[in-house]
């Protein structure tokens, strides 16, 4: 009898602690959670792009450009891989990729570029002033380097913002994390 009571007590304590302790994310966590900054752009899907559109979904938001040769393809392939691994749950995950190169990236260009990774990805485009405002709101830096032949490259912040179903900016995944880290964190965020 005492043994059974002790076992029940220990099990109860375990359940209680599991219920109260939040699962740790692989990403960096922002506390307290605040509403994600505003995003007022055009979507590559032809609709106006603001984050309120995706309330109820977890949004993965990142900045880049379609001529990016290194960072963006890796990031987008990773995010596509994470959605694939999530299976049916991926329907509640929206990837938004905002250009830092509005001079070359219009809605059609972003749609083509993002579509080669995952057709559900939505690009954010706009005027230089609109893109600058979006970058400022999210603390995104970008630096243009012009080559001798007049072509240019853009170095840019490469982390991925994780916005929860209620629109709160909850976490930030630095560049370079593998697919499984995203799957791990998305499963936690989708439960909330």
């Amino acid at each position, binding site marked *: 009898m005492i043994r059974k009571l002790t076992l029940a007590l220990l099990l109860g304590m375990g359940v209680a602690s599991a219920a109260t302790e939040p699962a740790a994310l692989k990403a960096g966590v922002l506390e*307290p959670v*605040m509403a994600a900054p505003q995003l007022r752009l055009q979507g590559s899907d032809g609709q106006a792009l603001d984050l309120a559109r995706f309330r109820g979904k977890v949004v993965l938001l990142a900045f880049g450009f379609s001529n990016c040769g290194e960072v963006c393809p890796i990031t987008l392939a990773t995010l596509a891989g994470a959605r694939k691994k999530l299976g049916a749950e991926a329907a509640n995950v929206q990837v938004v990729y905002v250009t830092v190169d509005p001079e070359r990236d219009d809605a059609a260009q972003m749609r083509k570029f993002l579509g080669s990774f995952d057709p559900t990805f939505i690009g954010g485009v706009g005027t230089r002033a609109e893109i600058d405002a979006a970058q400022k709101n999210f603390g995104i830096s970008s630096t243009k380097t012009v080559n001798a032949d007049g072509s240019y490259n853009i170095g840019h912040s490469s982390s991925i913002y994780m916005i929860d179903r209620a629109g709160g900016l909850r976490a930030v*995944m630095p560049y370079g994390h593998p697919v499984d880290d995203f799957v791990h964190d998305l499963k936690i965020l989708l439960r909330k």
Partner: protein
Amino acid sequence: MSPGKRVWIAVPLLAVLAALGWAGFAPLQASSREELFEIPKGTYARRMAGDKVEILPSQIRLTLGLNDVLMLRNLDDVPQVFGPTIMMPGQSFKLPFEKAASYDFACTAHASGQMTILVEPYPAMPWSKIRWRVREWRESRAR
């Protein structure tokens, strides 16, 4: 050598050996997994006034399994960008590390605009444990 002299040599030698043995083999323990750094109120205003004083170290050293979570708190009145994120006033950012490497981040709280996080592997060997303890002791004295 007289027995008295031998004792005078042997006792300190044994004490040093015992200390080294403890430092090299006893389990390591950090006071917290989180290494906290705060961006104080007025940082932006000071920077705008031309004050180039460094508020945070330009390099932060973390050790996997001991203190491998970077905790930044923005106590300033304006948003601050640290590496991968923007932090609103009053907000903190807790970034865990799982891989030993050197990470370079942009940071608006630095005059240089850059910050390096050096994440080192868990010191498993006795010599690396001793080195870790010595560094911790030095850093705790410097704080």
